[in-house]
């Protein structure tokens, strides 16, 4: 297949449609509007495709929940403030065990914040976000190619575990264009018994998250927890870059990880042995892999476009066995590799 030059937002849309997404509902918000527009333009040309511009982000998440219940592959997207509104529905999808993809093209926050790229929604994404004991699988892609690949994988995982999956990117990833090659999607595997299509002549089905008996509700919670444990055991993804000989490792994801790689090139040119640990799944967080790295390296620096959220996961993973520094640029600032390189160099020399 040919390489094409597309923006991140459009890539997500194209990958979703190729993966069999046939229902999308969304509400415009910058910087993800191109994705909504892409789905409006292209879903109508595929058989069975439905695009709905909803009256709100809340309505959108419930529209895709309904469509998902019928057995369709579904997606919605928004940016930070809109994702806050969707949390009610995400919690409900997790409770009802309905698959679906939620794309968050993050912008500055809290509140309305601004429309520049930021990473302040890490907590919201990785801790469930809505109420109740649940998790969502969260991908943190760092290249347009990864956006294409992970969007397709997200649909497979959502079906496999019957759970909502979030793609957590930022305004930079959404707006940026890079060449991509779309891989061939896998054939869908999703049992018809989970689809609500009318009872026919059989027994009627109920999909619900309201379980009034606390003992039954407890069991439902443990059932979800066991499922999440299986996901932790099997679906964790990460990338290590130049860690073999590293004396300091930067931990960063998404756009931050790109900047970190730029910084690492500069530092290596000056003879400093710096590497990168990049979680690709933000939940489940690749904590065992990171801990393993701490067996030989004890100098880490977390870099995020936030005031320090993934930092907490890194602390939990390393459990005090390594030094952890932090550099953050919240609020929509995208630092340069040169700036980060200076910060890293200071940490490097302090320990050296």
């Amino acid at each position: 297949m040919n390489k094409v030059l597309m923006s991140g937002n459009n890539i997500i849309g194209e990958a979703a449609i190729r993966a069999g997404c046939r229902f999308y509902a969304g509400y415009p918000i910058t910087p993800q509007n191109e994705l909504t527009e892409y789905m409006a333009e292209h879903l109508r040309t595929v058989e069975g495709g439905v695009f709905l511009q909803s009256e709100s982000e809340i309505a959108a998440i419930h529209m895709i929940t309904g469509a998902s219940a019928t057995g369709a592959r579904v997606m919605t997207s928004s940016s930070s403030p809109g994702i806050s509104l969707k949390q009610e529905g995400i919690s409900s999808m997790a409770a009802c065990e309905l698959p679906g993809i939620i794309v968050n093209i993050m912008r500055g926050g809290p509140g309305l914040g601004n429309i520049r790229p930021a990473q302040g929604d890490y907590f919201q994404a990785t801790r469930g976000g809505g109420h109740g004991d649940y998790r969502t699988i969260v991908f943190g892609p760092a290249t347009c190619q990864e956006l294409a690949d992970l969007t397709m994988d997200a649909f497979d995982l959502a079906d496999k575990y019957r759970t909502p999956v979030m793609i957590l990117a930022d305004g930079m990833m959404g707006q940026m264009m890079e060449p991509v090659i779309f891989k061939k999607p896998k054939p869908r595997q999703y049992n018809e018994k989970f689809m609500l299509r009318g009872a026919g002549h059989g027994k009627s089905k109920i999909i619900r998250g309201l379980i009034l008996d606390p003992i039954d509700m407890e069991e439902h919670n443990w059932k979800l927890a066991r499922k999440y444990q299986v996901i932790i055991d099997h679906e964790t993804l990460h990338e290590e870059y130049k860690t073999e000989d590293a004396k300091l490792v930067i931990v960063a994801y998404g756009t931050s990880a790109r900047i970190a790689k730029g910084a690492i090139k500069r530092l290596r040119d000056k003879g400093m042995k710096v590497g990168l640990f990049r979680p690709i799944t933000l939940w489940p967080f690749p904590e065992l892999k990171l801990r393993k790295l701490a067996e030989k390296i004890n100098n880490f620096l977390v870099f995020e476009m936030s005031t320090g959220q993934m930092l907490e996961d890194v602390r939990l993973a390393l459990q005090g066995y390594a030094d952890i520094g932090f550099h953050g640029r919240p609020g929509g600032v995208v630092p340069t590799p040169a700036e980060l390189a200076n910060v890293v160099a200071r940490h490097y020399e302090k320990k050296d």
Partner: protein
Amino acid sequence: MMLKTIFSGFGGQGVLMMGYSFAHSAMNKGYHVTYLPSYGAEVRGGTANCTIAVADEEITSPVASEPDYVVVMNSPSLITFQNKITCGGTMFLNSSIVEIRPSRKDIKICAVPCGDMAREMGNIRVANIIMMGAFIKKTGIVPSDVYLKSIGTIMGGKKKSVAELNQKAFTAGYDFVKD
């Protein structure tokens, strides 16, 4: 090799098209490439810019804090970007409407009266393609035939007369600058 370029000008001058066509041709040449538009609340007109990084290795940050090339199609863009350009870099400017010149002495300037040239050709809208002719020749990152092929792909179904005009405009810009 890692080269970053900012294309900037009025909305409507086709600066995003310049960046996109350049990125597209660099991709076809086999380079790693990123294209980053500036984005904001929707306003018609105003200024627009985009940043293109071209490299023979993985591109990390698509942002250009010190671009190697800046293409300015109007005066406000010159003021905005003249201090960002890297030492020894080149500024391409549309000398038909940009009357001021950067005060810096450590950068090269390539002035192309692309607006006047376009008007002579009978269509002001090809000023950007004329500038691209000059840009492609001067930078030498992408061969002219690869660039023209990309323009053909991007324009796709457009009329033959438009394609011919683009070809003519590109050649005019290409021949305007000396090696």
